[in-house]
């Protein structure tokens, strides 16, 4: 058994979230497993349509029909001494899920303007979170909200308490969202591309703010992004996703120093890097296939430089441990030779 402190906060096991649309089943998340360590930062990186946002939303069960979590477990180890809570098994109306959402696990989104109510002041929105989850009066909630707004770096917090979202800049709105998310000192902050819509100088300040608050409050952060630069800056652990599956995962240094999956390698080579002007970029051929039209075998084989005909298009690789917690889902690292069996095909 693992020592208690090493028990991850969240263990995601073989999560499958599918969307049952008129055009067919879209397997947005299809067999994803990873851990979110306590107090650390996990980055999920991938291109659009890889299922990174749906994975994040699944953790809070924020999946609207026609989407549904069809199988898998999301084990929440609130207290290492207690048995874990499986979030997948909680009903939408249960007290327990409501207590977790917004209080123990909070989330911030890409577009702060649409995450905030346009007809309520930011102060009211922050205090509402506090009033909803904690037994405090209006006066105290307001005092705490002002303190939070000040802590996230909103100047003149007391007077900005009465400001509406449209009166704030994009960076200030995201700070207000962070204040709201952190109102009840969550154990996990899920951040879904929180800096993508912001300018680089603002992004740098928001990333610093999240890191500072994390150090102060000891929370874990699950950060969804498509920007490898942001990953390198903040991640402890990295999960690389492709077409609803985990292609590779490991600690940030081994992922960047020694990427093992052909997709991760190709991604790293396709980004223009500062200080290395000119020349041709190595691009990945083709485009990400539509999730409703997933290739057989390895989902990446249609674009892969190391494609082995007859194997990669027939065998669905498993996530293999190649040492030191570095896992790769690629047949180059597997001794799996036999085609998928009927049971796996049916799924």
């Amino acid at each position, binding site marked *: 058994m693992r020592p208690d402190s090493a028990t991850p906060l969240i263990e995601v096991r073989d999560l499958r979230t599918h969307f049952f649309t008129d055009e067919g089943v879209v397997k947005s998340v299809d067999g994803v497993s990873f851990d979110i360590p306590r107090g650390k930062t996990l980055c999920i990186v991938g291109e659009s349509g890889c299922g990174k946002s749906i994975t994040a939303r699944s953790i809070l069960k924020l999946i609207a029909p026609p989407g549904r979590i069809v199988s898998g477990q999301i084990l929440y180890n609130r207290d290492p001494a207690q048995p874990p809570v499986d979030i997948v098994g909680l009903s939408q109306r249960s007290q327990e899920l409501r207590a977790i959402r917004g209080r123990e696990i909070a989330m911030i989104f890409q577009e702060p303007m649409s995450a905030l109510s346009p007809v309520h002041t930011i102060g009211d929105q922050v205090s509402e979170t506090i009033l909803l989850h904690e037994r405090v009066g209006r006066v105290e909630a307001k005092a705490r909200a002002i303190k939070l707004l000040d802590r996230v770096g909103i100047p003149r917090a007391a007077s900005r308490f009465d400001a509406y979202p449209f009166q704030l800049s994009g960076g200030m709105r995201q700070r207000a969202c962070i204040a709201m998310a952190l109102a009840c000192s969550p154990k996990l902050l899920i951040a879904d591309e929180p800096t993508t819509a912001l300018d680089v100088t603002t992004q740098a300040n928001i990333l*610093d703010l999240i890191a500072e608050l994390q150090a102060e409050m000891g929370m874990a952060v699950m950060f969804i992004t498509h920007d490898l*630069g942001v990953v*390198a800056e903040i991640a402890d652990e990295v999960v690389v996703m492709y077409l609803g599956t985990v292609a590779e995962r490991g600690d940030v240094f081994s992922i960047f120093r020694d990427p093992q999956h052909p997709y991760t390698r190709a991604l790293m080579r396709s980004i*223009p890097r500062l200080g290395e002007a000119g020349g041709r*970029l190595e691009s990945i051929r083709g485009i990400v296939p539509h999730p409703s039209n997933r290739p057989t075998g390895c989902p990446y084989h249609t674009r892969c430089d190391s494609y082995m005909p007859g194997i990669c298009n027939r065998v669905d690789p498993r996530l293999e441990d190649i040492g030191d917690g570095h896992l790769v889902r690629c047949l180059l690292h597997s001794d799996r030779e036999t085609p998928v069996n009927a049971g796996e095909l049916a799924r």
Partner: protein
Amino acid sequence: MNMHDPTLETPGPNASGRTLLGVRNLKVHFPITKGLLQRQVGTVKAVDDVSFDIREGETLGLVGESGCGKTTTGRALLRVVEPTAGSVTYYPEPDLAVDMLALGKRELRGLRRDIRMVLQDPYSSLNPRFTVSQIVSEPLRANNIATGSELEDRVATLLRRVGLRPEYRGRYPHAFSGGERQRIGIARALATDPKLVVCDEAVSALDVSVQAQILNLLSDLQDDFGLTYLFVAHDLSVVEHISDRVAVMYVGRLVELADTAELYRRPKHPYTAALMASVPKPDPTLRGKSRRHRLQGEVADPANPPSGCHFHPRCPFNDGDACVKQAPELREVAPGHLAACHYAERLQLAGIAAPGAV
């Protein structure tokens, strides 16, 4: 104003050195109106006294954060938005100068064959009710360049050239992915055989793997057709990759302009240096090295810009005197290197290290 300012005349590696488009003291101001009578209560100085040259065959990058006026500048060159003041001179031949701002509607339409745009969002910039063939051939029909089977042939050639299969020309835009749509937008821009293409955030909406494909395509097309690009973008690494020279804008003004390597290695304006320090580097071993140089505050409001140098409220080198009172002029501070900062010569600013030096 002096049309041949000698400080604006150092040729980039790709360029023949000849000025293709000269922009002098360009201003684009938008009125802020209020109430029933639309009384003007203020002015947004989106572009405020900007001068630069675009040389034939080069890629000039134009970077800055949102609201700095880079997109408005690109649009004003084509008179998609009407400039308030200044001049834009187009030199189709070495000794032929066309004053773009004096043209009537009909003449302007002719010139828009030479200067084209590629837009950011490949989803909203293509008419969903037009087929690919109709989209790409529209500029040819509108300008009476080709008809009938010649038109069909040209569309097929263009589609092939941007990496699309001509058999798909009857399809509608929604049948294509973002990267393919951007290729359609590029084919449309190239249809009239232009000299200058303004790429407005042309790869910003794309995933990195597709972004690399489009950047490579733009470079190939530049070599094949001798195109000149004005590449407007906010991503400093993309701009560095594709540009021969780079201009940096802040709140409506140009703050720095130099050859790409010079600008990135030896920035002379504190804003440029701060921008570079803010870009997250895709290498975890460099983590935290630039944390100390964070900019405070946010980009100023162009409707109510600060006095003097627009950057002074966020600048770590603000002297509280000249910086607050006097707007610095864009001047040559090193050969071919223009900067608008009172202290450009004296500041020691960190740029991006050359490869291998890290």
